[in-house]
């Protein structure tokens, strides 16, 4: 597989001007989902694979037929451009720091939501600069947890992308 070094992408700059406490934060090698907009076809298969992976049904038809899907990755597109948007699992996750219920945490590089604690106040929606958190069908908020909790165990959007526009890569973060 491809080896990718993390660049100073300024991921944090959008929401948190606290100087990155680089030398104090623990460097964790983490795999993250990256999007290569150049190759996104806007087919939206990632959304469907995500919704399916996070359902309890083995068969996508049973899982998704006649339903409005609520994927944790979503495509923005216009006539010419399309790209997928999902949680960046930020080094300094503002959602974790802002959650009024203490329901969001980051463990092993993955930002997760404890649905049991979530009260649905939408503070996370207010603060997340990546628009990566949205309500689930049954109320509490949901977000991409890199399929650690899903049926597939490895990101379904990445596996389902027909054009390698979504990559699951290890970075030093």
């Amino acid at each position, binding site marked *: 597989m491809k080896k990718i070094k993390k*660049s100073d992408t300024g991921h944090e700059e959008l929401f948190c001007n606290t100087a990155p406490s680089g030398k*104090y934060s623990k460097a964790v090698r983490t795999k993250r989902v990256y999007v290569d*907009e150049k190759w996104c076809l806007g087919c939206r298969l990632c959304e469907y694979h995500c919704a399916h992976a996070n359902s309890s049904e083995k068969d996508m038809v049973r899982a998704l037929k006649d339903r409005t899907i609520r994927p944790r990755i979503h495509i*923005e597109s216009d006539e010419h451009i399309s790209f997928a948007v999902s949680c960046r699992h930020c080094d300094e996750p503002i959602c974790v720091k802002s959650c009024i*219920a203490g329901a969001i945490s980051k463990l092993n590089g993955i930002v997760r939501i404890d649905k*049991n604690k979530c*009260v649905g106040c939408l*503070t996370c*929606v207010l603060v997340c600069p990546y628009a990566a958190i949205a309500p689930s069908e049954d109320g509490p908020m949901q977000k991409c947890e890199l399929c650690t909790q899903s049926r597939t165990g490895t990101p379904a959007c990445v596996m389902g992308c027909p054009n390698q526009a979504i990559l699951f890569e290890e970075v030093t973060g």
Partner: protein
Amino acid sequence: MKYVIIGNSTAAVGCIEGIRSVDNKGEIAVISSEQHHTYSRPLISYLLQGKTDLERMKYRDNNFYEKNACTLLLSQTATKINSSVRSVQLSEGEAVPYDRLLIATGSVPLIPPTPGQGTVKKQFTFLSLDDADALKKATGPDSRVLIIGAGLIGLKCAEGLHGRVKSIKVVDMADRILPSILDPEGSTLVQRHLEKEGILFYLSDTVSEYSGNTAALKSGVEIGFDVLVTAVGVRPNVSLAQNAGIEIRRGILTDSTGRTNLDGIYAAGDCCESHDISSDENRVLALLPNAYLQGECAGVNMAGGEKVFDNAIPMNAIGFWGLHIQSAGTYTGDVYRENTKQEYKLLYTKDGVLKGFIRIGKELSATGIYTALIRNRTPLDSIDFELICKKPQFMAFAAEKRREMFGITPGEEEGYLL
């Protein structure tokens, strides 16, 4: 290194996590006048409502203190800070020495002096778990509740009590509800929504006198009630700091690292003043995210790390019966306004940046994109502002920016191994 934290809420937790990101060894003592494991203060209305319970509203896991090696001193009130010998005097007589001290004493409710207040048997404030507990015990299906204050606390209290009491009436001296986060039109919109749920409002009015279970309003209206909740506001709890000689303005004054003017003493949370970058003014931002960020920043610096927190802004996400209100920043400058069936939206721009916004609607998504624009003071000419006004979206950003955010920098691909 001995760390002492006065307070056990969000800022304190932020501080503990901040310290532990740098220092795994130092001792941490947490002094709390309450008797509870750290809990999510804003969740007390949800507790009333039954949407959460004591276990679930714990702000951190049960093993939080243990995991972070904290000594927890519950039901202990700090009475004095002796900065010359670096110790904190507790009400129980013991003095706790510190090398670094965090003051995170939060805020206390304001109770305006009103004639006859003493005659009200069941009266409460609504700031702590104990408040909520007491209020829960004091109310029943026949209770008529009078809430003084149509701000965030008063109205969340109203929502919390809704359904478990007979009636809820809200009095506020302002001419509209939620004046701190909404514009007049927005206030009206939300007020109508609350009224549909049976909440009665008495605005531009104040209680001139209580007499037992009756409140006489200045307007002449008399309201009978069984339970009174006073929620006109809070003020920073600064007396301890003040007595220690720490500089106080609207709240405790700190620099961007969380330091007060006294060596080794830091402060964070609702007891402090913040610099709101959207208005370029110092204000008390009694908001949970703000408390955490301040506490964490102070914690890192207390432990010898380096961190600054210098982009505080006001922001709020609140909802009542499915109607969500999200706002941030300062309402100043040019306004983009949208009022559709789905959403009521105001965006305020000034000096080429987004200063503030208000969104009201049943389904609000991606608001963080707006919030980030304010926080980062993103020049609006670097994005497609017209597009982003319609809806917060990344399409409005330059492709390069999107690549920074979501992608992999070209040239870093080292090639594939087969």
